[in-house]
């Protein structure tokens, strides 16, 4: 029965993906996280603003940044190794879709500005080394998403589970 029926029990966080395309376009330009208000100018505030605490970043902010970083790493590697592009770009798009969902969930905007999502470290010119470096990043990403899912409130658990699973499948796809 299960094999022919849609998964009725999984309708927990059906997300509207309609905004993904435009977000993706924005992300592609190189992205900067603008935490709503956290980095807004605090200068020139009046007396009443003095005691206001800046809003605490959402606990998922690092995971969102990691999604953008992983996407940036894959896109950069695809530029250096065009023969790998068909393998790498779908993975980058997945990370960007995660970033868009995480941004929506945490109420932050992803603004295009400086290339903040560029990967850390130089890109290996060797194809094998490049894939190994990408696998290492995905493995670390999988672990952080697993931790985030374990600690998450109910309404975030399903999305974070999918992010963890996706990162694990990327690791497999990069073999």
């Amino acid at each position: 029965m299960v094999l022919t029926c849609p998964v009725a029990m999984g309708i927990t966080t059906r997300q509207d993906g309609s905004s993904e395309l435009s977000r993706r376009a924005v992300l592609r330009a190189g992205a900067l996280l603008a935490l709503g208000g956290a980095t807004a100018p605090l200068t020139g505030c009046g007396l009443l603003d003095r005691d206001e605490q800046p809003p605490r970043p959402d606990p998922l902010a690092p995971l969102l940044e990691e999604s953008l970083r992983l996407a940036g790493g894959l896109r950069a590697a695809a530029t250096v190794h065009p023969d790998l592009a068909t393998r790498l770009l779908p993975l980058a798009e997945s990370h960007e879709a995660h970033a868009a969902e995480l941004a929506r969930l945490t109420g932050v905007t992803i603004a295009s500005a400086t290339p903040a999502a560029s990967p850390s470290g130089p890109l290996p010119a060797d194809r094998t080394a490049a894939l190994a470096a990408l696998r290492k990043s995905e493995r670390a990403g999988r672990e952080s998403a697993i931790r985030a899912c374990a600690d998450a409130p109910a309404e975030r658990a399903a999305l974070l589970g999918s992010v963890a699973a996706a990162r694990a499948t990327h690791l497999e796809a990069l073999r």
Partner: protein
Amino acid sequence: MSETFEALAGALTAEYAAIWAYGPIGVRLSDAERKAAVAAEAAHRARRDALVMQLSTAGGTVPPDRAGYALPFPVTDRASALRLAVQVEERTAAFWRAALPVSTGADRDRALAALVEYAVRATRWRRSAGITPLTVPFPGRPA
């Protein structure tokens, strides 16, 4: 009946069906692929056994296995067997994903481990089948 119990009972029915489906799948595959199918089926059996134990201990009605399950399409050759294997892993993953929001602690960890493992198996089956891309952005999310 708690939400957790219901979700795990759903996962159990998915595991039953997955185990059943690997029968017709296995006989159509190459030797190396059959080994992978045996390993995949063993994973589904292990989770089925653990779920039956857990749900029995919880005291609710454990959903029974069925004599057979309807396949979404006929499995007549290697290509259709691989396609079904992809689908089996994806659908089972979806049930475990559905258990995430209604579970905590060790239950959450187990559900996540199942989701991750089955998503990876689906990717491996896609590779065997020559399906691209090898991955989906949100494994287990209902389409």
